[in-house]
């Protein structure tokens, strides 16, 4: 829009304009909304940390077979002289060289904990992204429909969402899993369902404000169909809050899935899921603390990464906050 404006109304040569300085800045760096966001995001240290953690996590997940010395479910009985719940053995830190190296120790089933934690990154990322995608697809459809159609459709959909919101998320997820039966897939469905209302509300709010704007009226005047307006005009402009909500939502989805797995309702053994690893070894918290410490740290770092990035994105995508933020720095 900015470039279109400047070409459409060329300023008289030599005439000093109050906007001249600003325009000079804009032309100096090619400016798109995406680039602006990226620039603002870069200036937030927390967002950088978040991205660094997530980048590392994604690399670990992608290259798990390369990084992990063992397959996640390889039982080392008879393969190596190790006992269940052996402490970590790191050669660099003084562990005798004749003992096999296990960075995070051995779990109760005589498997390499490091390999399981590494493969757990795949599971957790999969959980986070798939549940949030599921919730976004359904939530966006419902929210957009409610906001755009209004009237009884709005009432029915949003009251339904209110009902879902009225239950504590984890409790509702447990109830859904109890009905569907335990297992990773059912846990994903449960967490997905539980997180639908958040997206529906966000989208509805954006749609409500956007549909009153002039360019929508213009589009309608040109004869665009309601579906055309909703999906090609309204929704793309309602995306910003959704991105923030989605990023933060991945964090809470991973946490919920870990909680369900801890309770034995999520990932079933021998899936290397961090929550279930925690749950299985919870009784060894005093005798073999490494077995609960490292999966716990992995969950914490992942959730922290998504939360930091989500916060940063929210600041970067909010024009009002963004201006203030830049000036302060």
């Amino acid at each position: 829009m900015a470039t279109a404006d400047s070409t459409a109304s060329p300023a008289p040569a030599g005439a000093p304009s109050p906007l001249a300085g600003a325009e000079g800045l804009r032309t100096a760096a090619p400016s798109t909304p995406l680039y602006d966001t990226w620039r603002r995001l870069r200036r937030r240290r927390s967002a950088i940390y978040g991205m660094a953690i997530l980048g590392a996590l994604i690399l670990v997940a992608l290259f798990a077979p390369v990084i992990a010395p063992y397959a996640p479910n390889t039982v080392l009985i008879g393969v190596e002289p190790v006992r269940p719940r052996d402490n970590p053995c790191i050669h660099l830190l003084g562990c005798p060289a004749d003992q096999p190296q296990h960075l995070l120790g051995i779990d109760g089933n005589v498997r390499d904990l490091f390999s399981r934690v590494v493969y757990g990154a795949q599971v957790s990322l999969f959980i986070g992204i798939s549940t949030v995608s599921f919730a976004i697809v359904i939530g966006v459809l419902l929210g957009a429909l409610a906001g755009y159609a209004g009237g009884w459709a709005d009432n029915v959909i949003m009251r339904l969402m209110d009902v879902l919101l009225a239950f504590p998320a984890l409790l509702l997820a447990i109830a859904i899993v109890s009905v569907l039966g335990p297992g990773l897939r059912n846990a994903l469905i449960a967490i997905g369902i539980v997180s639908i209302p958040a997206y529906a509300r966000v989208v509805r709010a954006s749609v409500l404000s956007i549909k009153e704007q002039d360019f929508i009226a213009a589009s309608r005047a040109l004869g665009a169909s309601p579906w055309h307006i909703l999906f090609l005009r309204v929704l793309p402009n309602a995306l910003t809050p959704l991105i923030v909500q989605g990023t933060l939502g991945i964090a809470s989805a991973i946490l919920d899935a870990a909680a369900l797995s801890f309770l034995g309702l999520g990932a079933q053994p021998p899936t290397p899921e961090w929550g279930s690893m925690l749950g299985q070894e919870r009784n060894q918290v005093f005798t073999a603390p490494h077995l609960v410490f490292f999966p716990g740290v992995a969950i914490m770092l992942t959730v922290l990464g998504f939360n930091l990035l989500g916060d940063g994105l929210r600041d970067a995508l909010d024009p009002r906050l963004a201006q203030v933020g830049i000036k302060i720095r």
Partner: protein
Amino acid sequence: MKRSHSLMRLAGILLMAALVISACGGAATAVPPTTAPTQAPPTEVAFAPLTYEAPDCDYGGNFRSMEAVDRYTVKFTLCNPDVAFPSKIAFSAFAINDSDYLESTGGGGTLVESPNGTGPYKIQEWVRGDHITMVRNDDYWGEAALTETLIFRWSSEAAQRLLELQAGQVDGIDNIGTDDFEVVENDPNLALYPRPALNVFYLGINNTVAPFDNENVRQALAMGIDRQRIVDNFYPGGSTVASHFTPCSIPGGCEGEPWYEFDPEAARTLLEEAGFPDGFETTLSYRDVVRGYLPQPSVVAQDLQAQLAENLNITAEIVVMESGAFIDAADRGELSLHLLGWGADYPDATNFLDYHFGAGASAQFGDGFPDIQEALQTAGSLSDQAERNVHYAEANNLIKLHVPVVPIANGGSGLAFKATVEGAHASPLSNETFRVMQIPGQDTFVWMQNGEPAGLYCPDESDGEALRACEQINESLLSYEIGGTAVEPSLAQSYEANDDLTEWTFHLREGVKFHNGADFDANDVVTSLAVQWDAAHPLHVGRDGSFTYWPGLFGPFLNAPAE
């Protein structure tokens, strides 16, 4: 807005209608109770001895009649000789209740919540989900309990049990964690009491579920599991690999050939012959509760899962179930592969073999094996141990052949008490007796076990967590010695049998009173046992009505409902 108002009104009307309908429905279902129980006549003044009799022995069970000869004499007549009868009748599932109390509760309901026994403790309160409080029975016929108040608590977490003991919140705990034996031994404030491994942990196989209907497949499972690896890695010291279904310290337990050697090659060949060269998919169910025979359920389940995949190419999906639901599903024959175990109730092979493989056994392993049942029936009817052993050898060999189970381990377990506890002991039958325990100067004793009892009417319970609580409150005709397995007099002072072990006469203790003040007499014995025996008895109700021990030990119920 208007539309939503009318919607609200519609919803309101619907709600009212629903309320009215449910109210009417509720009233309509509250029909008067079915015909009042009629069995026992009042026994207040003149003693009218009760007799309960089967028309003949064709119903399949072993009881012929139970008869109150006089106020303090009871005679049982059996269809077949039963050498283990005293050991069986001493078991807490055959506890004696007040016949009037049984009738007033209708055989279930409050009976499950507030038992009324003759034991050293009486129940004071049961806060569901939290604790059971019992107080000393000052009118107890024997030596009164040393501690006035006994509290049962429970936690499924070994770490929590140990923590509470270390913090002094409880005075004794059951089943310390596998890795915690050392911790307890090194703590001068605690004392470790190892419990002998009088139990068996097994992989149960349901032969009505394909492909386990194929004997070759079951034998492949029997050979394809490295049981030594499980015991070595996941069991505490004092545990052994099970050579037979019955532990060797039980008379006749280890007759016959020992179990298959671990031989994955031969197992795969068997699977190939059965038509499964590439394995198959199945489920492996277990309950995530710790018992003496299975100290680390989830770890062992995962190792079995890994072994099945590695040795036999069988993909087993692990299914974790709630304890009660798991047992019920197993008894109904709904589980294919499942992990369960058995701890001895009394030291006789019948307790292990007849309960699981006898004619009255549940559908846990699918259809019973008639040849095993026959061998067990013969063995149980003989009195000479050497003669019995011949038939137990046959039964054990048949179990090895048919593989309804893969016996895996005899699990050693341990209890921990505060070092100051006097009279502490670990019972091989898991029935610790708390009346002999005390901490001098302390009038409350707190015990923490693995789980909450499902009910306190123990004829209808089979979980040790419930039985242990019942045993403080209710008593049977005989009992087991404290911390041992020998049978001792209890409510019966003495007993005798005829020569062919089919008629057993018990002489009851006089002057014993139930907790509610009622006098104990022979009719209480007959009623208590007849309620279990006769499936058509109006008081044959219980908690869920399964009464699993009775058919397990004495064969089918009288008047068992046709299936």
